[in-house]
């Protein structure tokens, strides 16, 4: 396959945009976090003396000018150092004499990444495996009863509250029948319920898009021409139409992967899944600002990576960008 310069120029431009956006988002997060009160006081509690607070502020670098703090933050962002956690850091770990590295927020957040990737990956693979055949089956017989049933079901899929469905799943399949564990991590059985809860929405959306984009494509003149040449319907759909219908489908799969990455925030909390989503909620609720920054950083990084992958796939599928 011949790949031309336009392809690389396109990808490079998208990559640059993502990096700029990441820096902007993290800067906004940095300044927003400075608005919610004194971090030193949050660490020491309300009973602490003014002197102790001032001491800690100096130690944390909060007494430095804002420009210096921001510069340090940007430097840390570039070198992958997003500061030390408040809670774990200055209470238990320091007293226990743990090594300083254990307190850095980015490694703490990175530890949670594999669990989230497993859950999100399982969800998307399952969704695509269910949704694509459903959508194509419906598109093959438009306005028939099966098509209408699939249409209403896919609308139902996008109408459900994910975490509520998750709780109902727990109630039925974990509590009532005890087929799956209610929460936890480690075995395949643990993945089933959270992935199922997360997959309803992607299944609904991908089914709709697969159906409509294939139908749109089948209505185009080149398909009529192919049919006119006597090529069998099945072959026309599979070889000619599907290739062009793939662009919106791939874009939707990308969008839905991003939705799943945000969906894990709630679903992981419900299932006690040790991923980045549950950690985000924990960090937010104990107001551990450096940890919040690290989790937001990783979540945004994941989203931007998925966007970039979709762009690469798009460039590959679009001959204008691929072939010189």
């Amino acid at each position, binding site marked *: 396959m011949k790949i031309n310069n336009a392809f690389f120029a396109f990808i490079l431009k998208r990559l640059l945009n993502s990096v700029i*956006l990441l820096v902007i*988002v993290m800067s906004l997060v940095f300044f*927003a976090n400075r*608005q919610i009160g004194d971090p030193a006081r949050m660490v020491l509690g309300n009973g602490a003396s003014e002197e102790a607070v001032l001491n800690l502020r100096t130690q944390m670098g909060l007494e430095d000018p804002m420009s210096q703090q921001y510069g340090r933050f940007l430097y840390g962002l570039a070198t992958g150092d997003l500061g030390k956690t408040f809670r774990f850091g200055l209470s238990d770990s320091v007293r226990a004499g743990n090594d300083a590295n254990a307190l850095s927020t980015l490694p703490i957040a990175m530890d949670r990444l594999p669990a989230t990737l497993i859950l999100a990956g399982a969800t998307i693979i399952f969704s695509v495996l269910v949704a694509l055949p459903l959508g194509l089956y419906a598109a093959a017989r438009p306005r028939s009863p099966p098509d209408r049933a699939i249409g209403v079901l896919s609308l139902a899929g*996008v109408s459900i509250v994910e975490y*509520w*469905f998750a709780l109902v799943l727990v109630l039925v399949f974990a509590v009532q029948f005890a087929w799956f564990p209610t929460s936890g991590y480690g075995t395949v059985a643990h993945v089933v319920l959270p992935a199922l809860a997360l997959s309803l929405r992607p299944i609904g959306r991908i089914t709709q898009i697969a159906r409509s984009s294939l139908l749109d494509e089948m209505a185009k003149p080149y398909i009529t021409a192919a049919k006119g040449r006597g090529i069998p319907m099945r072959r026309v759909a599979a070889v000619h139409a599907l290739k062009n219908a793939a662009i919106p489908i791939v874009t939707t799969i990308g969008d839905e992967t991003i939705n799943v990455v945000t969906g894990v925030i709630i679903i992981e909390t419900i299932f006690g899944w040790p991923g980045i989503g549950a950690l985000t909620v924990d960090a937010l609720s104990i107001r551990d600002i450096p940890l919040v920054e690290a989790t937001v950083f990783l979540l945004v990084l994941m989203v931007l990576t998925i*966007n970039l992958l979709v762009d690469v796939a798009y460039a590959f599928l679009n001959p204008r960008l691929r072939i010189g």
Partner: protein
Amino acid sequence: MIDETASTTDDTQRDASIGYRDIIRALVRDPLVLVSVIFLTLLILSAIFAEIVAPMDPLIPNIFASRLPPLSYATGLDGTEQLHLLGTDALGRDMLSRLIFGARASLFVALVSVFVSGVLGTCLGVIAGYYGGWVETVVMRAVDAFMAVPSLLIALFVLFIIGGGLVNMILIFALVRWVVYARLARGITLSLRETQFVEAARAIGASNARIMLRHILPNMISPLLVLATLEIALLVLAEAGLSFLGFGLVPPEPSWGLMISRGREYMREAWWMITLPGLAIFLTTLSLNLIANWFRAVMDPVQRWRWLM
């Protein structure tokens, strides 16, 4: 290009010919959508007149009536026997009444947010598409940036900074969702800007504001309505999610999301406490999605005949 322009004008003229009578006729032909419309109408009416419709006060607890299943009777605080049609929650508050008042909170947040973000996004989108140049660049850069980061993540973080509550939620939803309208409005404006009727309006000396308001805006009402309906559904879900995590509406406000989050502690022994508010959200968003889907088809001249035949 000329052919395309001509067909757009043609479609627009055909579009204008659909009347209320046709819409009603199309509605009756699709029972599922008709049921959705009736359900939503009843829901909105009971949310508006919640004080009259709700059988009991949604906030006053009654410890003698705690966690009663649907269709149970209990002695109320005034000593009379009361029917709890949909049961009670952990504090003995009537579920039906809380669902009705919860509808008010959830729908209010969604509708006001959609209105604010819709007006803001449409204005910016039309202006960006009409004038082009640096205005367009600035607006579309902002749109791209907001599109690249998930709304729920932004909403969660901003609510963490400024705190939850009704007004803050509406502000956040307006902040993160205006972009979808801006993108749509700009796209339609770009294609309408070159049409003959806009050119004609310009030729007879209509001002830019007049062209945008009288010639461009009316031609995007139906796609905007479809989008807004889908957005209401999305925001009802988002409100429930954020309230569940504790970053949305604040208790004791009866909101559907908060009810599920409360009911979670008792879900093993009192299934109705999480099932009913979840069903309420599901039916509401499903109705909205069905209506949006149907409306899009009816407003599409290519597809419309199937509904009117």
